[in-house]
C-alpha cells in the first residue's frame, strides 16, 4: 500500500519579513552607503527582502562603534556579560520557531533541520558561553579580551555560525562587527533585533551586510584586533595573506573533503544512516560533510544497495514542509558549481546515480547523488563540492583506509564505522582531522571543540578551547 504523506507546511506567518533592511550599527538600524542587494528564497526564487550594502566607510563606522563599546563591555564584570548572553539565549528559545522559519526561507534548508538542529544548537551555544563569561580565570587562556572582533560567516548555517562567532567573543569581553553571507543575511538581522530586545549595550554587536568587498573591509580594517572567518579555503588563504605582518589574531574554519570510512564489521544500518547524515544533511552544504565514502571492499556491494534503498526514501522539496529531508541549494551560483563538478565526475568515468526524485520547477535544486567507481585522482574525490554529492571509494585494509582518508590537503573531519573499539581508536589516532566521528557523523555540541587540520583552517570553536581565539595569550 502506498502511504502518501500529505503536505505539512510550517506556517510562514510566524515571521514578519520587512521589505528592506539596513545595517545594524551602534544598536540601531541605519542605511548603508552601497547599492542594496536582494536576498531570495532559493526554493522559489522569490525576493524576500532588500538588504543594505555596507561600504568601507560603513564598516569603519561599525568598527568605531565596536571600539567605543569595547571600553564599556570589557569593563563589565563577567557576571553581567553572562547575564546578557543568558538573556539572548532565552530570547532565541522564545523566538526559535520564527528564527527557524526565517532560516529555512532564506537558506533553503528543511525546517526539520532548522527547527531540530540549528536553533537548539544556537541557543545552547549562547547558554554555554554565557556561563564562561565570569569563569575565564579558570579556563587557562588568561582573561584579557582582544578588542574588536571582525567576523565573517558563511551561508550554510547562518545563525549557527553567528552564534559560534558572537557567543565566545562577547563572553570574553570583545565587541564584534559581523558580516553574514550575502545570500543569507536575514536571521543575522533578526538577531540584531534580539540584541535590542535584550538591551545589549549599543555597539557590542554590529551587523554589516554585503558581499565579498564588505567582508574584505571588515578583515582589513586596521582597528580590528581579531579576525574570525568560516568559509572557503580559497577566501581563508586571502585572509591569512591579508593579516600577514599585523598583530591581528586569526581563526579560520575552512573547507573539507572528509572521508567516512565503513569497515566490514560496521553496524550497517546505522552506517547507512551516518552516510546519509554525513553528506545529505543540509544538502551537503557542510564543510565537515562526509563527502568521500570509503567502504571496505568486502561489504561495498551490500552497503551500496542498502544506501541506495535508503536514499529512495529521502523526500526532496519545499523546505518549509515538515517532512522534507532535502531542501533547496542555497544559490544559483552554488548549484552551478555542484553541476559543474558532477559533470566532471561523469566525464572522468565515475558512474552517477540518483534516486527517482522529481525536482520542483522553480528554485535551485539538485537531487541526492552518488558516484561509484571513484578514484582518488578524480576531481570529485579531491575538490569540495559542497552539495548533496557522495563519492564512493573502496579500500582493503585499515592502513589503506587511513592513507586514502588523509590523502587530501584538507583535514576537518572524518568518520569511522566499526564495531571494534580498538580499531576505531587506532583509526582515530591516525586520521589527520580535527573531528573524528566514530559510529556517528555530523554531531555538534557547544561543549565540543570543532575545527580543522591542514588547509581546513586553524583555531577551534566550541568548548573551553573556543575561548582561546578571543583572549590575549598569556606568555
Amino acid at each position, binding site marked *: 500500500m502506498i*502511504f502518501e504523506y500529505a503536505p505539512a507546511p510550517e506556517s510562514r506567518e510566524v515571521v514578519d519579513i520587512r521589505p528592506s533592511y539596513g545595517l545594524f550599527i551602534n544598536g540601531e538600524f541605519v542605511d548603508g552607503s552601497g547599492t542594496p542587494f536582494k536576498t531570495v528564497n532559493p526554493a522559489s526564487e522569490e525576493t524576500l527582502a532588500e538588504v543594505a550594502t555596507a561600504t568601507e566607510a560603513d564598516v569603519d563606522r561599525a568598527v568605531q562603534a565596536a571600539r567605543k563599546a569595547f571600553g564599556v563591555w570589557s569593563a563589565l564584570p563577567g557576571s553581567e556579560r553572562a547575564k546578557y548572553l543568558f538573556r539572548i539565549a532565552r530570547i532565541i528559545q522564545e523566538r526559535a520557531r520564527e528564527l527557524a522559519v526565517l532560516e529555512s526561507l532564506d537558506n533553503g534548508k528543511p525546517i526539520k533541520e532548522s527547527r531540530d538542529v540549528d536553533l537548539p544548537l544556537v541557543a545552547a551555544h549562547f547558554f554555554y558561553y554565557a556561563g564562561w563569561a565570569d569563569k575565564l580565570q579558570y579556563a587557562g587562556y588568561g582573561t584579557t579580551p582582544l578588542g574588536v572582533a571582525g567576523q565573517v560567516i558563511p551561508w550554510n548555517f547562518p545563525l549557527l555560525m553567528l552564534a559560534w562567532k558572537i557567543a565566545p567573543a562577547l563572553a570574553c569581553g570583545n565587541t564584534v562587527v559581523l558580516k553574514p553571507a550575502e545570500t543569507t543575511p536575514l536571521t543575522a538581522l533578526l538577531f540584531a533585533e534580539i540584541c535590542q530586545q535584550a538591551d545589549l549595550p549599543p555597539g557590542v554587536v554590529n551587523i554589516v551586510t554585503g558581499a565579498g568587498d564588505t567582508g574584505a573591509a571588515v578583515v582589513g580594517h586596521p582597528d580590528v584586533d581579531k579576525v574570525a572567518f568560516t568559509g572557503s579555503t580559497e577566501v581563508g588563504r586571502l585572509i591569512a595573506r591579508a593579516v600577514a605582518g599585523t598583530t591581528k589574531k586569526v581563526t579560520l574554519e575552512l573547507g573539507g573533503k572528509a572521508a567516512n570510512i565503513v569497515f566490514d564489521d*560496521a553496524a550497517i544500518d546505522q552506517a547507512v544512516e551516518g552516510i546519509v547524515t554525513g553528506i545529505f544533511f543540509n544538502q551537503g552544504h557542510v564543510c565537515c560533510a562526509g563527502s568521500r565514502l570509503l567502504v571496505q571492499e568486502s561489504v561495498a556491494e551490500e552497503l551500496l544497495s542498502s544506501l541506495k534503498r535508503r536514499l529512495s526514501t529521502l523526500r526532496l522539496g519545499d523546505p518549509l514542509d515538515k517532512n522534507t529531508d532535502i531542501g533547496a541549494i542555497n544559490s544559483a551560483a552554488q548549484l552551478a558549481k555542484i553541476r559543474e563538478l558532477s559533470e566532471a565526475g561523469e566525464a572522468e568515468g565515475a558512474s552517477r546515480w540518483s534516486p527517482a526524485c522529481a525536482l520542483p520547477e522553480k528554485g535551485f535544486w539538485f537531487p541526492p547523488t552518488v558516484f561509484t567507481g571513484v578514484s582518488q585522482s578524480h576531481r570529485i574525490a579531491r575538490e569540495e563540492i559542497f552539495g548533496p554529492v557522495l563519492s564512493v571509494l573502496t579500500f582493503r585494509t585499515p592502513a589503506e583506509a587511513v592513507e586514502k582518508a588523509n590523502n587530501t590537503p584538507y583535514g576537518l573531519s572524518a568518520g569511522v564505522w566499526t564495531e571494534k573499539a580498538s580499531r576505531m581508536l587506532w583509526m582515530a589516532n591516525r586520521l589527520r582531522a580535527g573531528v573524528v566521528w566514530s559510529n556517528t557523523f555530523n554531531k555538534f555540541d557547544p561543549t565540543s571543540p570543532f575545527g580543522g587540520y591542514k588547509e581546513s583552517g586553524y583555531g577551534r570553536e566550541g568548548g573551553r578551547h573556543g575561548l582561546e581565539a578571543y583572549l590575549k595569550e598569556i606568555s
Partner: protein
Amino acid sequence: MSIPTASSNASLRAFLHGLPGVDRVGADARAAGLGTRSIKTTAKRQAIDLAISMVDLTTLEGADTRGKVRAMCAKAVHPDPTDPTVPKVAAVCVYPDLVAEARDVVGSSGVKVASVATAFPSGRSSLEVKVADTAMAVAAGADEIDMVIDRGAFLSGDYVKVFEEIQAIKAACGEAHLKVILETGELATYDNVRRASWLAMLAGGDFIKTSTGKVQPAATLPVTLVMLEAVRDFRDREGRMVGVKPAGGIRTTKDAIKMLVLVNETAGPDWLDPDWFRLGASSVLNDLLMQRQKLTTGRYAGPDYFTLD
C-alpha cells in the same frame, strides 16, 4: 554467510553473531527522527484507517471472562457502531481458554482470532506443555498463535533450544499463523533483538512480535525499527516475507502513526498491510476512533462517545 543448519549452538551462534551489529544510539536516533514525520489531513485519515485495520485487539488479563472477551470481540468487528465506514480490526487476541468464545463472536466477519500460547507470558514450562497449549488453542479455532520464546535459553546461548521450540510450535499450529514473541524488554540489547528476530524467522515464524505486554519496555520505536530491518533483510536473502507486530505501549494515534511511518520507510510499503504488520494494543483503538471522528466532523471528540469494551 550461508544460512546455518540448526544442528548446533555453535553454528547458530556463528551465524547470529555474524549479523551486523546494531548501534543503539544510532538506532534510537533514526527511530526518533522518523518519529518527527508530520502526518496530517489526508495522510492522517489514511493512516488512521490503516492502523485500525492492523489492530490486534487484546485482552490478556487473569481477570478475563467470557463476557469481557465477547464485548471486546463485538467491538473488534464494529469498532464504531455509529460509523460503518470504520474498518474492522485485524484480530482479537486472547488466552487459549477463551478462543472458542472469541471465535463465536467474530464468526465469519474476517476478524481473526489470535491466541497466546506456550505458557504465556513467561514461557517457563516444558515443550510438551507448550505444544499442548498451542494445540488446544488451535483446536478451539485460533487462526493465529502468539508464542513466547524461551528468553532464558536465548540469553544463555542455547539457540538450538529456542529454534527447535519454535519449529515444534510451528508444527503444532498447522494452518494457524505463528507469531513469535521475542519479549525484547528482556533481551537487553538491540543486537539480541536482531539475533532473536533472525532465529525466529529461520525457525519458521510467520510474524515476529516484540512483547507480551507484561514486561517494560515493550514495543518501543527503535526495537520495532530493528525488527523491521530484520524482516526486510530476511526477505532480501530468503525470499520469504515475515510480518512484524509491535505490542504493548502503543496507546495513542500518534504512537500508531509513528509505527506506520517506520514500516513505510524501513521495510517498505509491502508491509503496510494487516497481513504483514499488526499493532498489538487495546486502548489505542479508541484514540484512533476519536482522532478519526475529529477529522470527519472537524470537532474534537470526547471519550463518552466511544465504547469502553
